[in-house]
């Protein structure tokens, strides 16, 4: 699971090592990545909202 999250975070900033990429493609299921990615994106949006609200105060 941790390696999935790490890969999603890496994708978020667009940096990934070739070794990790090969591993993800040989062992993981696409659905896990998609679900985790959606979740991480939601958390990112919420984070931005919190920051924006803090700035607006």
């Amino acid at each position, binding site marked *: 699971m941790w390696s999935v999250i790490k890969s999603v975070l890496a994708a978020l*900033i*667009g*940096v*990934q*090592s*070739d070794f990790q990429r090969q591993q993800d493609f040989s062992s993981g299921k696409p659905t896990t990545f998609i679900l985790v990615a959606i979740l991480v994106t939601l958390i990112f949006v919420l984070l931005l909202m919190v920051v924006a609200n803090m*700035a*607006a105060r």
Partner: protein
Amino acid sequence: MHSPWRWLLPISFISTAAQAQSSGWNMPVGVTDISRDIYGLHMTIFWICVVIGLIVFGVMFYSLFRYRHSKGAKPATFHEHTTVEVLWTAIPVLILVGMAVPATATLKNMYDTSEAELDVMIIGQQWRWRYEYLGEDVAFNSSMSTPWEQIRGEEARDEHYLLDVDEPLVLPINRKVRFLMTSDDVIHSWWVPDLAVKQDTIPGFINENWVQINEPGIYRGQCAELCGVNHGFMPVVVHAVEEEEFEIWLAERKEAAEQEAMGVDREWELDELMARGEPVYRAICASCHQADGQGAPPAFPALVNNDQLIDDLDWHIDRILNGVSGTAMPAFRNTLNPVEIAAVVTYTRNAWDSDTGDAIQPAAIAEKIVQ
């Protein structure tokens, strides 16, 4: 600036001190706290860009020279370097966040129009500005005063060519003034660089902005949104004065407005109306219908030898009160007072070759406006 992020702008202090007087190459430092903040941000970000540029191009040109082919340099062949990639992603993010924090603080301050001590409505019109001091019963139009002879090249241009008006916007210093900005026709933009205000005036919307001017002076600007043929001929002039001077000016304007209102009821002589009408004509009408009344047909009809205008007084007055839809002729029922309308109608019916002898009475116009 009252922002806690001021410490992030150390470089701006140096450059502001060195550049207190505008060189003409850079944006002006301006005369409000906001304009100084904006200038500071601009200089900080400029220097950040300079440093990044020096580092990036320095490394690039050094590498080009040091490892050139003629010295037998062999290229390294590797596919990736995660550490370097993370670094060159993380550093720009940090730089961007570092710039966003003080920029957002300034932006927040710019949008805070609360607790203003004076409200001024700014209305864009083709092609002049109208200023209304809300709650003070003072309102006037501000038209370009550069003579058309200068624009046509028949006279030498003066110092403030295209940047002078008949009636500047007068504002007090050290007081927070809120602007409520809208337009009667198309989108204009009220822009005064020294005040760091550039705000669109949009028909049907009211945009807000504010200034608190620190130094008395005359600040000039222009319309910054293409608004028709005379877009270049609707400058902005702000006259910032000491607070006491402003109070005196405001009281004088109020009294003049009252005098004018009282003048509506009395009988006016033809000469009086002509004298009052000429400056109104020059300020309001001449930009389209020309100082000699010849107009610029077919867009702007001539007023001299215009049979319909001479024969039908009611039609003539109706044009001015209500405008002509689908053309550049605006309605003046709300922007000129009865005395001004009566005077300018009288003027156009008696100036040049038109000698109708009609002396239109302000009282008659006031009646029509009410209808």
